[in-house]
C-alpha cells in the first residue's frame, strides 16, 4: 500500500487543484482582506492591519439587523421545514392510493422557476390597488383586517420570508425523507407488529433511528443553506433590503461589495469571516450532537 501512495495523490490532484484555486485561495484572500484597514480597491493600498473592520461591522446597525434576521430565519425555518417534511413524508409513505400524485405535487415547487414562484407569492401576499392578496382574503374570512405583508410591519415581512423559505426547501426534504423511509426494511415493522409495538413507539424506536442519518443530513445542510439565504429575500422585497429591514448576512456582504453604498471589500470580508465562523460553529455543534444520536 505504502509504495503506491503517490498514485493516490496523483488521482486527487485535479480535485485538490480545483479546490485550492477556487475555494482555499479565495478564503485565505478574504481572511487577509478582513484584517487590512482602510483598503482602497482602486489603488490596492491600505493603512495598516487590525480588528477595525470587524469592529466596524459588528457596530453597524445594518449588520446587526441582518444578523438578527438570519438567525430568526434559521431558527424558525430549519426545524419547521424538517418537521413538516417528516410529517408529510410519513403521511405519503402510509398511503397507497394517489401516492405518486401527491409526491409529484409536493415536488413541483422544486422544479418550478424562481420567477414563477415569486409570482405565486405576489398573488398570495402582494397588496395592489385591486386586491390585498389571497392570504389577506383568507384572513378577512376570519374577520382579520388586511396586513401589508410586503411593505408592512417587520413581523409580517419576516413571516412571509419564513413561509417562502420553508416552502422552497420543503420539496427536496420530502423527496429525501420519503426515500429514506422507503428504504427501511419492512421486516422491522413486521417484527414490531408481532411484538405489539404501538405506532408511536414504532416511530420513535424504529423509524426515527433508522432514518436519523438522513434527518441529520437535512438539518446540517438546512442550517448551512439558511445561513446563506439571500436570494429569497431579494425575490420578495427587492434589492434594497436594508431599507426593508429584511437583509441577511449574505445580503449585507453583497451590499458592502456592490450595493449603493458598496466598494468596501474589507468590511465585506470581515462580515464573510464572521458568517463563516458562525456556520462552522453551528455545524460542529450539529455534528457533535449527531454523533450521540445518529445510528448508522
Amino acid at each position: 500500500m505504502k509504495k503506491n501512495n503517490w498514485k493516490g495523490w496523483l488521482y486527487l490532484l485535479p480535485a485538490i487543484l480545483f479546490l485550492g484555486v477556487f475555494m482555499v485561495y479565495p478564503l485565505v484572500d478574504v481572511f487577509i482582506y478582513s484584517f487590512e484597514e482602510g483598503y482602497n480597491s482602486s489603488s490596492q493600498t491600505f493603512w495598516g492591519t487590525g480588528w477595525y473592520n470587524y469592529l466596524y461591522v459588528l457596530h453597524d446597525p445594518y449588520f446587526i439587523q441582518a444578523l438578527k434576521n438570519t438567525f430568526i430565519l434559521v431558527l424558525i425555518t430549519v426545524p419547521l421545514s424538517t418537521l413538516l417534511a417528516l410529517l408529510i413524508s410519513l403521511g405519503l409513505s402510509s398511503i397507497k392510493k394517489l401516492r405518486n400524485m401527491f409526491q409529484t405535487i409536493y415536488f413541483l415547487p422544486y422544479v418550478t422557476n424562481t420567477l414563477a414562484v415569486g409570482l405565486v407569492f405576489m398573488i398570495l401576499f402582494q397588496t395592489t390597488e385591486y386586491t390585498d392578496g389571497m392570504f389577506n382574503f383568507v384572513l378577512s374570512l376570519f374577520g382579520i383586517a388586511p396586513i401589508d405583508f410586503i411593505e408592512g410591519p417587520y413581523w409580517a415581512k419576516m413571516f412571509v420570508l419564513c413561509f417562502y423559505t420553508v416552502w422552497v426547501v420543503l420539496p427536496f426534504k420530502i423527496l429525501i425523507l420519503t426515500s429514506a423511509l422507503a428504504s427501511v426494511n419492512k421486516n422491522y415493522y413486521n417484527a414490531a407488529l408481532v411484538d405489539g409495538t404501538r405506532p408511536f413507539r414504532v416511530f420513535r424506536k424504529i423509524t426515527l433511528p433508522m432514518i436519523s442519518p438522513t434527518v441529520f443530513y437535512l438539518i446540517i445542510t438546512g442550517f448551512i443553506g439558511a445561513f446563506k439565504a439571500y436570494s429569497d429575500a431579494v425575490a420578495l422585497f427587492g434589492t434594497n433590503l436594508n431599507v426593508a429591514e429584511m437583509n441577511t448576512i449574505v445580503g449585507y456582504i453583497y451590499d458592502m461589495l456592490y450595493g449603493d453604498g458598496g466598494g468596501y471589500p474589507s468590511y465585506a470580508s470581515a462580515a464573510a469571516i464572521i458568517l463563516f465562523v458562525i456556520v462552522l460553529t453551528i455545524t460542529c455543534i450539529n455534528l457533535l450532537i449527531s454523533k450521540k444520536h445518529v445510528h448508522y
Partner: protein
Amino acid sequence: MKVVLENLTKKFPGRGKTSPGVTAVDNVSFEIPDGKLVGLLGPSGCGKSTTLNMICGLEAPTDGKIFFGEDEVTKLSPELRGVGMVFQNYALYPHLTVEENIRFPLENLKKEKKLSKAQMKEKVLEVARLVQTEELLDRKPAELSGGQQQRVAIARALVKMPKVLLLDEPLSNLDARLRIQTREEIRRIQRETGITTVFVTHDQEEALSISDMIVVLNNGAVQQMAEPQMVYDAPANLFVAKFLGTPQINMFEGRVAEGKLYIGDEAVMAADGAKDGDVLVGVRPEGFVLDENGGLAVELNSVEVLGRDISIVAKHKAFVGSSLRVIVDSENLSMIGNGQVRFRLKPAKVYLFDKTTEERIRL
C-alpha cells in the same frame, strides 16, 4: 397449545385488470399437536412464508380459519395472538444492543402485564442463557456472527414466552456447519421450552432432522403430512417422492399386468392389488440389489466408489429423467462387471404412481 388450520386460502390480487392474481395458499388444513415442532417443507414459492404469516397474523387469509387451542384467532391482530416470530433475515434492530433487542417486546407490554426494570432484566437474562448469548448482551447486531444473530432473534421471539413460535427459514443465511449446529440448538430450545413451533424450510435434510412432523407443500397445497421417516418411506404422491431424497428417486415408465410389475419388457416384482395398466414407477437409489437373476437389466455408464457405498450411473430405456442412479454397498464391487448389470428391487423402496393423478397406488 395446538394450532389448527382449516381450509386456509390466500389469494393475492394481480396487478392491473389482465393479470389473474396468485393463489399462494390453497385450501390448506392441518393440525399441529401441542408442544410439537412441525416443519413446513416445500420448494421456493410454494406458499410457506405466506402460511406462516397467516398463522402469525401479518397476512389475513382470503378464506379459512385458524385456531390456537380452542380459540379462533383468524381475525386477531398479531400482538394479541401470543406468537413469537423469527424472520428469515432476523430483523434485529441494528441500532439497539442485543439486550435492548431482546427486551423490546417486554417494553411493549401494557397495564397489568407491565414489568418492572428488574423483572425485565431477569427475563432477558433467563432467555439469553437459554440461547447461550449472555456474554453478547452489550453488543450491537452488526458485531455478531450469523449464528449469534440467529440466536438473539430466537431469544427476542421467546422472551414473552409465546404460545407458538414461528421460524421462517431461520438457517438459510448460515454456512453448512453452523446450520447443523444451530438447528440442533433450535431443537434443544424447543424441547426445553415445549413451545409449539412451526419451522419453515426448503431444505429437506433440515426438515427431516429436527421436525416431529413434516408438512410438504407444493403450489400452495398440502401434499402430505407425516412423521419425517414416513414422508420418505411412504410418499403420498409423485411430488413428495421426487422432492425428498438425495440422490433423487429414479422414475421409470412401467406397466402392471396380471399382478406383476413390468419395467420395459421384464417383470421386476409382484404388484398384487394394482389394476392392470400403465403406471409410473419410482425406485429409491438404495432400492436396488445386485442379482444375476434380477428382473431389471441396466447398461452401466460409470461406477463411483464412495468408500462405504458405490454409486452407479446407468441407462435404461424405460427410465424417465437425466441419470439413473443406484447406490449399493461397496462389498458388491466385485460383482459389477462391464456392460450390463442385473438388479432385483426391494419392494419397500418401489412406489407406483398413477400416470394422470400422480397419486401413489398402494399395493
